[in-house]
């Protein structure tokens, strides 16, 4: 237990919180667009968003590694324009996590919106409300369970990241050494006590979050 440190756990939750909040901003408008668009190439967009569900994290990690490399095209631009390094930094982990957890936010929200009766949207339009007002005042408040599911799945999925973090984040304490990486390290060093402490805490906290969500969702009867 001597090697146990709170830092990886705190970093994990900082990463998960930041990612989830940013995913709210990115994922909800994207889900809203996907739910109602008649764009011809919508299946292409949907397939791209769903890629992290099927690809090994190392594949994503590999391409992020190439993209974020400061000598590569994107990495060079980010560095010269914004002084932003995404390789082996917390910011890089956040960006990668957003892509990695995007389907977990988009899918439930999109499904929730698609399952609402079209008449709700149309009624709001006939009452003179714009698309934006209808989205925020009528549609989103009526898919609270889907929003909560998206929120929690994104959070939980980010907590569970390992391969991707290892590929582009490495193992820098306080920067990129999240709990899942710390567990791996401790096991490598045969520090089973510390590994168990991280693992058990992650297990209990993740279970607690999911249990809370299912309990709340059961109570939210919309119709």
């Amino acid at each position, binding site marked *: 237990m001597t090697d146990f440190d709170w830092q990886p756990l705190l970093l994990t939750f900082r990463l998960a919180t930041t990612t989830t909040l940013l995913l709210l901003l990115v994922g909800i408008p994207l889900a809203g667009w996907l739910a109602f668009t008649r764009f011809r190439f919508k299946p292409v967009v949907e397939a791209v968003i769903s890629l992290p569900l099927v690809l090994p994290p190392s594949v994503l990690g590999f391409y992020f590694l190439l993209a974020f490399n400061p000598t590569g095209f994107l990495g060079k631009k980010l560095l010269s324009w914004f002084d932003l390094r995404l390789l082996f930094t917390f910011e890089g982990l956040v960006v990668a996590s957003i892509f990695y957890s995007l389907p977990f936010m988009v899918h439930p929200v999109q499904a929730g919106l698609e399952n609402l*009766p079209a*008449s*709700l949207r*149309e*009624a*709001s*339009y*006939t*009452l*003179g*409300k*714009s698309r934006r007002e209808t989205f925020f*005042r*009528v549609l989103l*408040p*009526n898919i609270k369970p889907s929003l909560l599911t998206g929120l929690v799945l994104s959070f939980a999925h980010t907590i569970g990241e390992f391969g991707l973090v290892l590929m582009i984040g490495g193992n820098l304490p306080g920067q990129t050494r999240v709990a899942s990486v710390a567990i791996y390290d401790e096991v490598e060093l045969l520090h089973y006590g510390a590994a168990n402490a991280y693992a058990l805490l992650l297990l209990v906290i993740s279970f607690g979050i999911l249990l809370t969500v299912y309990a709340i969702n059961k109570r939210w*009867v*919309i*119709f």
Partner: protein
Amino acid sequence: MGDILMPMLQLQARMNLLFASGPALLDVDFKLTTGSLTGLCGPSGSGKTTLLRILAGLTMPESGLIRVGDRIWLDTAERIQLPVQQRKVGMVFQDAALFPNMTVRQNVEFAAENRRDSLVDELLSLVNLVHLADRKPATLSGGQRQRVALIRALARRPDVLLLDEPFSALDYETRQQLLHELVRLHRQFGTTTVLVSHHQDEIHRVADCILELNQGKVTAIGSPAVAGKKSAVPLRGTIQEVQVEETTTRLRIRLTDNLIALNVPSGVQEWHIGQAIVVSLDTQTLTRKAD
């Protein structure tokens, strides 16, 4: 001259429709008097709902013209297309489409121009819903929900009120009550109203104009009497064929030199081939076929 003195709702529309029964062309051209309560009827798949949606701006016809009073809502020739939000319509949907996250009062306030609009309270009391104002739609009965939907549509102060079979899922008693309230509200507000219903008798009773649609075409328009509510002379005939189904019985009746088909409710009366019958002809509901 009449057009200038009597502002009206004019609709011309052409549109290809695809129903379960196959493709059909909606091709209508009619005018309704301002302040009228028009009953829109016709068999399912005749284009009634599409017509309401075109009026509301929820469906775009291939070509068309909609004029409400002196305002043009749609003129495809001139490329004018007022978005649904800018057409002052109130629409009541079959499923009421109340917003589940809002209370009854909030639903009605949502439609009003501002929250302090006195019309909200007035409407709530007109349909006796003041005591339910703070309830969520999920806790209301079907009839109460449709009442809320009706006053919500009126709170928008619409130029045209469109009702798409709003009472069809309700029981007979509630339906009569709501029709009565609709007529009362119509008298009070004088909003040009189009009511879709498949209950012919009821629609003839409350409407002051009947618009009949069949396979996308207007087959009759005018006052209920003119649109064929009652025939002047009862006709004698003989039943040729009886086809009993669960809810309706299809009769083929020979009337002098014509064979007509007539649908009547099953289980009310027994019918048999060769039976003499007197038909009080409602010409609009009969399908006439050559002998």
